[in-house]
């Protein structure tokens, strides 16, 4: 669709988390892993992740002191809305 508004950065990040399979706590990714997949600048990635967590599209879990991120059911639906 020739969109009147560009896809927001955080939605782009959400799509990548979905497509690489970070869709459950067992497959959650660390911040460093997310940076590798997305090639985003760390401050931008952090800002977008915070937005996604705040909107409940992404959840964070602590594993051995490391924060890991995965997308929620609502996050999956948000991503799929682009593709269906």
């Amino acid at each position, binding site marked *: 669709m020739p969109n009147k508004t560009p896809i927001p950065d955080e939605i782009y990040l959400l*799509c990548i988390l979905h*497509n690489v399979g970070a869709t459950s706590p067992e497959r959650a990714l660390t911040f460093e892993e997310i940076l590798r997949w997305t090639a985003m600048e760390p401050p931008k990635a952090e800002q977008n992740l915070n937005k996604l967590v705040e909107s409940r599209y992404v959840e964070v879990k602590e594993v051995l002191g490391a924060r890991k991120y995965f997308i929620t*059911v*609502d996050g999956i639906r*948000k991503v*799929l*809305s682009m593709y269906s």
Partner: protein
Amino acid sequence: MNICMITWEYPPRIVGGIARHCSGLAGALAKLGHSVHIVTLDFPGAPSYEEIEGVRIYRTPIELGHPNFIVWTLIFNHFIEKRVAMLSRDVKFDILHAHDWLVAPASIASKHYLRLPLVSTIHSTEVGRSHGLHNPDSYLIDGVEWWLTYESKRIIVTSNAMKREVEDHFHLPSEKIDIIPNAIDASKYNIPVDRGNVKRRFGIDPSERIVLFVGRLVPQKGVEYLIMAAPKIVERHPEARIVIVGDGWSKDYLLSLAASTGCQHKITFLGFISDQDLIEIMLSSDVLVVPSIYEPFGIVALEGMAAGIPIVASNTGGLAEIIEHDRTGFLAYKENPDSIAWGVNRILSDPGYASWLVQNAKRKIREVYSWDAVARRTIETYERALRE
């Protein structure tokens, strides 16, 4: 008949109309005595295998990922294809049925190694969804859609508008395409609800009248035109509240658009809600607006008709076939907030007119859009594919 249905979307993985279509059709086929196997993708919380009312559902995990969407679809198709291959050791399938381009590679490969006829339902096209082809991914998706129609023995579309689109764009022979509409289980809407309680539960005052939108918040659904119509609706009917159900990537834009109308306090975004909540909010609404700019069918219009809500829909695609203007609903000009406001205001102002639309719509649902009828016609298509 042993039917293998391949779809990327199946409840609880509900995105658009495909999941609802597949589950309705599969259930009705099973009721007719056919053995239906659904091969689909996994979803958090859903079992990898389950049987629901005779339909066997196999949810396939995607064990690898890639940031690029197209690469991701090719990867999940591999896992779906593997699942079909494993199943075919135990089940002698008679026919394969694919839903949309997302499962084309797995469906086409399965057709060749199982030597079975492939029937495909084309729910929409990339060129229609995107209003043209604007980037390399779109060109590829368009090519895959053509490839799926070419490899399929028969094509099912849900409306005349889609038949024209598929025939013209992919240069398909008309005889290869069957029009079988979507359907709905109208009995789900025969439940008593306390409209006041339902409204309170969603933070809506019981005295307010709900003007409802249900769908994905993406440009093709045209939600922005309803939001732009809001001031004209609220000016005439201060008791109206625009309620938007659904989520999607355009949500932030729509929120800012709502803020710019000056009647943001009259527009509520509910996000994604459960099926049960959706039925209850529909039964508590006064008008359903379907302002799509591209809609091959528009199953939400059937849901509204079954729930007994008068409908204002864009005069486009499948909606223009489901809705008879001034008889089963109000057809508004596409992308036209004034026309939407006019239709909504007429329905809210004239209870006799609203009731006339609802009675006619309910009758049409009973006569035309039942899953039993759709399943029987689908079997006819399978039989033709087997014969040809």
